[in-house]
């Protein structure tokens, strides 16, 4: 076989270029920390990385939604707790006005107490979080109960359908309750009307009316307790969800890292090998191109 000057040069150049390219690729991987620079580096891994980025983004969004819902539920839980306290106070006030031994002054004082409790319930039921009412159902921008001055409290103006927020792909949490379900349930009238009747009965010393009013408060107590139980369950779900989302995110980031990131041990080893190969190629080219028969002719 004839070994020609050009072939020798071409082989030398190709060898040097190949070694330099490998060295540069490992250097890029080590300096950027990324295994994939463009889709053609690994099309399948790029496809996987796009999927993982989407997964991570969705998890982050669900985590934000979970935090937001948790704050809202904490407010709702506080309101429901207050409702329970107020209903207990109402029971005590109504009971204190019962019996023929009570004076009118005592009954009036109890009635005034009950009016204050009713007003607190009114305020509680109109609680808003971030500009939306939590007891208006899906009509979250509509105040559920209104009154003009110290006039009668309006009927429920919210929506009977409730509003939920997704905290995962197939998991939703109620964030706006049907206030009517809490204040009225299956009763003929809502708790405010019941309070009005109860206050009138207390002033009039109508023990039967007081009993009926106290029963209505008890039924509402049960409804509020049920609602609070559901909120408590949702809060536990959220706590579990936070842990789950955190684990899912960690797993997704790990998968993404496996797809995209450089394996430093491998890359640094590869870089050292490529560096040695490049130096060897330089040495080989240098020694081969030095030799020629011309050098021996004198």
């Amino acid at each position: 076989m004839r070994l020609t000057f050009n072939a020798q040069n071409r082989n030398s150049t190709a060898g040097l270029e190949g070694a330099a390219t490998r060295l540069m690729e490992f250097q890029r991987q080590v300096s950027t920390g990324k295994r994939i620079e463009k889709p053609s580096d690994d099309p399948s891994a790029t496809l996987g990385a796009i999927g993982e980025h989407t997964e991570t983004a969705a998890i982050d969004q669900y985590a934000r939604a979970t935090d937001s819902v948790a704050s809202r539920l904490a407010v709702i839980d506080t309101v429901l707790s207050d409702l329970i306290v107020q209903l207990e106070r109402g029971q005590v006030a109504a009971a204190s006005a019962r019996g023929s031994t009570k004076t009118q002054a005592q009954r009036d004082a109890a009635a005034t107490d009950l009016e204050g409790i009713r007003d607190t319930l009114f305020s509680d039921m109109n609680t808003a979080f971030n500009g939306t009412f939590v007891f208006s159902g899906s009509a979250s921008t509509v105040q559920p109960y209104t009154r003009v001055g110290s006039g009668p409290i309006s009927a429920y103006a919210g929506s009977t359908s409730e509003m939920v927020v997704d905290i995962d792909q197939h998991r939703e949490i109620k964030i706006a309750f049907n206030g009517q379900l809490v204040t009225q349930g299956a009763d003929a009238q809502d708790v405010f009307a019941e309070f009005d009747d109860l206050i009138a009965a207390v002033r009039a010393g109508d023990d039967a009316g007081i009993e009926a009013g106290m029963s209505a408060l008890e039924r509402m107590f049960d409804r509020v307790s049920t609602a609070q139980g559901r909120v408590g369950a949702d809060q536990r779900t959220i706590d579990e969800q936070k842990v789950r989302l955190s684990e899912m995110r960690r797993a997704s980031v790990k998968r993404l890292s496996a797809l995209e990131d450089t394996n430093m041990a491998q890359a640094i080893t590869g870089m050292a090998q490529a560096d040695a190969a490049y130096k060897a190629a330089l040495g080989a080219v240098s020694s081969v191109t030095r030799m020629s028969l011309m050098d021996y002719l004198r």
Partner: protein
Amino acid sequence: MSSLFSSLTAAARALDAQRFGLDVTGQNIANVNTPGYTRRVIDMAAVPPESNRTAGRGVDVVAVRSARDLLIERRLQQEVPAERREGALADVLGVVEVALGKPGESIDGALDRFFDAFSNLSQNPSSSVARQEVLLQADSLADTFRDMAERLALSQRDTDGQVASAGQDINELTTQIAKINETIARTGESAGGILHLQDEQSVLVRQLSEIVDIDVLQRADGGVDITIGNGRALVIGENGYQVQTSVVAGVNHIFSAGVDVTSELSAGKIGGLIYARDVLVPGYQTALDSLAYEVANNVNALHAAGVGGDGGTGRNLFTFTPAIVGSAGAASAIGVNAAVAADGNLVAAAGPGAPVGDNATARDIAALRHGKVIGGTATFNETWGQLVYRVGRDSQTAANEQHGREEIVTQVDALRDQVSGISLDEEAVNLVKYQKAYEANARFFRAIDSTLDTLLGMLR
């Protein structure tokens, strides 16, 4: 006497032949780096004696040949276009894949942020800030689609420009090759002066084969005839037939003698450029348009059924300007409905028939992130991922193919070098060989000269 003079003549002829050998060796060494230069070999032959009583009349140079293997050259002309086709594809796709952006930072990221905005709105359906965020992200998504469509269109335009430029290159090379054919025909093989012309021509033919797939036919006079495509004449003897570039359906087509031969040019740089411009990039554009169309239509269907903050309904979030037919051009025409963009309150968050303050539509649109809405099998981001995968795979295949073909070309080039290349060691040996032969013949000449002197001295 006459035989001594014949010996002197033979010695002079031999000196001339060995000097010629030195000349050729020097020429080979001088052109060791000249592209296309083929090693020259001289053929020497003994000059036969005039009669039985003489040994012979020395040596003469009967020919100078180029060490050329036409089969290897033909193989190169077949392999180079295939290698350059893949090279051109890899170059175009290398630009396209970079234009697609990195995972999470391109259309997929814009889609994620868009759905995040609707998810935020579902948590605070009365929030004007959340509505503005929806509009911002919808606009950003539309912008990203339009940018991507523009980048693909730019790649296609650049590629088209390269096709036109390749057409000009073909014409320049065609003209030069035809001119060399003319010179070769005029010079004639007998003159022995066409070897350098053939070397020059082989370089031009090689350059031409890098641009376009050619068929080369060796002419009897040493020149070449060249055709492209389905036997379209490019060079016949001293006639070069120029190709014409003309715009058809918005892109440059190549014509030969008035016939559109674009579809016949499948290899060489121009073949790769045409394939990328007419098949690959339009395929990516169609996929991008389809994705933009599906995003807009699916979001619009939910948004139009939903109820805005003003209680109104029936409004699309995305529009296409200019109007499109089917999905063609959707990615470059997508934008946010101007009426909605001007008033964030018109963004629909409430479900169909639901009161203002509801979040069902916002939830439904946010849930499109996970919906298998493309053909019932893929989400938007999966569809985007498939497009990126397709470009990456095409680019990788082209690069691998080019690498493989490059190896073949390198091997064939090495084979050609084995025949035609210059070996400095070999030339050094030849140098010594001809130098020694020259010295020996000079000594012979001196011996004959001395003998003649002796003979003439006897006459004094």
